């Protein structure tokens, strides 16, 4: 029953949503919207579960004194501070539990949660992702060799798009006469994006769509049940 009942729920809900798409009348009409609202609420709890699980995992690592355990204290403290600030003083758009927040806002210039977001979160996330620029550059230097027609195409289109989408592209081919405008790098990049790239993206989208439809049917019909876990 621990496995059968969830399978029945999945089948029931999935089928109802599909039916409601084809029969937009009562009682199916609003089912899709209602279930979507419920889905939002449950996924909200799922996100919270994820954060609490992170908290639990870090706590376990600290208590067991696993390698680098001192660093996990920092993660825990940061998490607690962010949550406490958010709950007590609220965010830019939402009031928190404490009512008299104005003196602190006057002192910091913004709410404490927003202060942490602006000076910690924004800087950290932007730098973390910009760090990838170095690794991508290093990887492309090692991997980008025109060894086969396929890799040559990949390399050429990447270079043309990069040049065509930046001012250097205009600068390089700016001297080309008006009658040969199709040789301008921005135009070549546009052509690649508009036709060649779109064609491949369409093929990917159609095939991925077929894959998603197949997987969804497998889930609804109970053929795919790995999400229930092993027990």
């Amino acid at each position: 029953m621990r496995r059968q009942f969830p399978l029945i729920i999945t089948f029931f809900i999935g089928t109802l949503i599909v039916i409601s798409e084809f029969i937009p009348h009562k009682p199916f009409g609003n089912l899709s919207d209602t279930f979507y609202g419920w889905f939002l609420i449950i996924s909200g709890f799922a996100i919270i579960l994820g954060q609490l699980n992170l908290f639990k995992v870090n706590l376990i690592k600290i208590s067991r004194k696993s390698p680098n355990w001192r660093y996990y204290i920092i993660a825990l403290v940061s998490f607690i501070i962010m949550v406490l600030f958010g709950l007590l003083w609220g965010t830019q758009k939402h009031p928190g539990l404490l009512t008299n927040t104005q003196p602190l806002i006057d002192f910091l210039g913004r709410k404490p949660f927003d202060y942490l977001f602006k000076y910690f979160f924004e800087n950290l996330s932007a730098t973390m992702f910009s760090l990838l620029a170095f690794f991508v550059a290093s990887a492309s230097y090692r991997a980008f060799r025109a060894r086969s027609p396929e890799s040559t195409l990949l390399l050429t289109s990447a270079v043309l798009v990069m040049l065509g989408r930046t001012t250097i592209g205009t600068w390089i081919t700016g001297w080309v006469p008006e009658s040969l405008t199709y040789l301008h790098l921005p135009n070549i990049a546009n052509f690649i994006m508009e036709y060649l790239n779109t064609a491949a993206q369409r093929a990917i989208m159609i095939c991925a769509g077929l894959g998603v439809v197949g997987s969804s049917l497998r889930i609804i019909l109970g053929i795919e049940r790995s999400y229930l876990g092993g027990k």
Partner: protein
Amino acid sequence: MTYIIERIGIWIGAFLTFAILSFLYKDNPFYKIAEQIFIGISAGYWFIYTIYNILIPNLFTPVLTDLSANRLLLIPAFLGFLMLCRLIPKIDWVSRYPISFVMGTTAGMSLILFLRSDIIKQTSETMMNPFSAPDLAATIGQLILIIGTITGIIYFFFSKKHEGAFGTTAKVGIYFLMISFGAAFGYTIMARISLLIGRLNFLLGNWLGIIKP
């Protein structure tokens, strides 16, 4: 006072930027500290975001203000509570019920959405008359679009061995895919580089004041 607090924030931001960038040399304690702060702050941010933007408007406010009209919302609330039971190993199996609900909803919605937007829409967009284009370049482009889409789909058809005429067509599909991946790669690099420029702007502008941010 606000100015000083803001300057302290900028100095912290500069320190964290350097701490993350120090990973380019090698893994070190500064990077580890910044990494853990990032993890903690991100988790906290999404926690608060979920509460204020998902749970309060969709669950708590309707239930607390008008319970009789929103009685049905107690079902997802209960399922959400069951989801949290995943943290208690003895009763973690009860989380299968909300998971099965989420899976059913996701599967049902994905089936409809992907069928409509990805399969039907993209297929109908490809079924066009290429010769109705206003100029020669557009006609060639639309012919390429049709050929690229069909050959790309043929490449993804794995139930038949890619040999002979079928294999050659699939090979043309690979060429189109490679061009697309190259374009995507180019865009990714540009996005990362622009983020890096943003960081340099922050360091040289907001922090050091050498350039105007």
